[in-house]
């Protein structure tokens, strides 16, 4: 593995650790509710009533599916772009001076 690949792998590991650690340290005592929902719950407890409702509110399972769709669209396009850029470089290695090491 090149030094470049190693650093990239370590970056990925650091990100994973950053989000696994809270789960491990917590030991199952928190329910990790969303901060957005926490605020609306607090405002409603203080007596605020929303004056407009969402036009369309997906049921629980549908909602998680739509969130997954959003992530899939973003991940798919990002992968497509990075793959094309990489393919372009590896297809023409001689024309790009200084590339390959950084």
């Amino acid at each position, binding site marked *: 593995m090149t030094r*470049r690949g190693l*650093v*990239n792998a370590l*970056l990925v590991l*650091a*990100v994973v650790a*950053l*989000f696994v*650690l*809270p*789960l491990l*340290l*917590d030991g199952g*005592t*928190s*329910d*990790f*509710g*969303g*901060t*957005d929902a*926490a*605020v*609306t719950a*607090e*405002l409603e407890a*203080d007596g*605020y009533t*929303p*004056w*407009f*409702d*969402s*036009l*369309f*509110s*997906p049921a629980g399972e549908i*909602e998680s599916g*739509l*969130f997954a769709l*959003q*992530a899939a*669209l*973003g*991940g798919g*396009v*990002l992968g497509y*772009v*990075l793959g*094309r850029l*990489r393919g*372009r*470089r590896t297809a023409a290695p001689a024309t*790009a*001076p*200084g*590339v*390959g*090491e*950084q």
Partner: protein
Amino acid sequence: MHIAEGFLPAGHAAGWTIAAAPFVVHGARAVVKEVRENPESTLLLGAAGAFTFVLSAIKLPSVTGSSSHPTGTGPGAVLFRPPVMALLGTVVLLFQALLLAHGGLTTLGANAFAFAVVGPWAGYGAYRLARVVGAGLLPAVFAAVALADLATYVTTSVQLALAFPDAESGLAGALLKFLGVFAVTQIPLAIGEGLLGVLLFRVLTVNARPELERLGVLEPVPLATTGGAA
């Protein structure tokens, strides 16, 4: 950072919509101009939009025992300047408001102001400042991406505090309360997002060098040193 549908008083909702609208319109024109003048930008523009699309969909656990999501608006702000992200970020928010009941149409203006205007500008400001004081590209990208994330949530806290000042402690008390919910949870997420931004730019500096040079993110390699540049 999504203020839920109907959760801002009508006056605030209208005010933030009026405040955000010029940025979004200007952003739309910036995107059209960029694509028209530099068609080769389209790929990276897609990457910038895709980055914010995927990151804002993923809720992550934080040390506070609650979860939140990153924003992903930093890389686009660094690459294409903030106006472009005003449009791309608002498209993301609109998708979530219409399909996911996350955020809302009445709060779209306020959310766009936090997510698509303040976040990208704060990130871009951090990037420029870091470069001016001599930081390398990657540390500057880390600062930009992390700060774009954090600034968005701070802005949301300010918006909520303005709308719901505390009965006893007033605006400052309410701001502290909302910052306590949003900002503290967001710190590890902002760090993680900053690292992802660094990873993205490490890949881009190798594979998209011509684009980054044209966008002014990377210095062109001087011809004299090309042979031994490594």
